[in-house]
């Protein structure tokens, strides 16, 4: 067996399947791609309805479905060894931990014993600029870059 063939065999042998190969024909992946394209269309058209719940489901819900399909079918995560799931899961947990620890401080602009004056001012300035823009010419060719910092 050549060195390259050895590498190739080794690569194939770690997939977790009995034969060391995913065993899917090209048509399987084309079918998955077609489904992903349909989901993309829905995620673009859904928010056009202007209903917040529909936007959340079609834009963000479908993003998770698309991500799952890519991870499962293209990255073959479903047949990967458990250690890979543990590695990725640990990283995701750290990300959620980061979000949970910081989010209340960023998303809320006042609490029982504190007030984030700068953030409040930025929001007020931004909303004021938005109203002025909507009340004025309304197009996006004004070139002011959008206001406050």
């Amino acid at each position: 067996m050549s060195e390259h063939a050895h590498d190739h065999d080794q690569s194939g042998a770690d997939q977790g399947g009995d034969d060391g190969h995913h065993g899917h024909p090209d048509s399987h992946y084309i079918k998955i791609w077609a489904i992903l394209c349909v989901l993309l269309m829905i995620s673009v058209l859904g928010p056009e309805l202007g209903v917040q719940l529909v936007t959340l489901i079609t834009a963000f819900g479908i993003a998770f479905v698309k991500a799952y399909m890519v991870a499962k079918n293209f990255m073959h995560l479903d047949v990967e060894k458990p250690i890979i799931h543990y590695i990725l899961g640990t990283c995701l947990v750290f990300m959620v931990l980061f979000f949970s620890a910081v989010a209340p401080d960023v998303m809320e602009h006042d609490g029982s014993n504190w007030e984030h004056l700068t953030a409040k001012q930025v929001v007020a300035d931004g909303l004021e600029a938005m109203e002025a823009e909507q009340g004025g010419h309304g197009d996006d060719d004004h070139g002011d870059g959008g206001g406050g910092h």
Partner: protein
Amino acid sequence: MQKPIATNRSSMGIPTGKLAVWWVIGSEIVIFGGILASYLMHRLGHPEWANYAQHTNTMAGAFNTLVLLTSSLTAVLAHNAAERGDGKRAANFLLLTVGGAVTFLIVKGFEWNYEITHGYVISSNQFWSFYYTAAGVHAMHVIAGAILMVWVSTLARKGQELQRVELIGLYWHFVDLVWIFLFPLLYIAK
């Protein structure tokens, strides 16, 4: 020439190279996850960002999503060809994937050019800072992936190092995954 031992060694039943790519992806989850989570929490705390987001080009973002999804397809088809030992076919599919990367970057270039010439620059406000940072870091990953794929495809065409086709494919699918979340956050939520 003797290959370095790490090239063929299998650790925990996983080839070392593949395990390394998964570690890279794990660390990228924290990097991109941090950016996306920061964006999300700021967005929820700043209702005025909805107005700034009005100026991003949804159609350009959707087209680029289609481009990346298609390039993920060609990457997995390259992997399938490599599994069958067909290096030339794998190389051709990898070059198609590179074509997707280049198309993505060209569209992004036009998009950024329009936005910058209309005054929406990285220092305009926090929204545009996040927009350029998130999309910029992602674009750098696209460039790195494209360069690596050209290299891997050159070897694959000669029938060498076919296991690397899967490794670069894993990385590329992750780049696609990140964009799947960036797209609704930056382009759809208005």
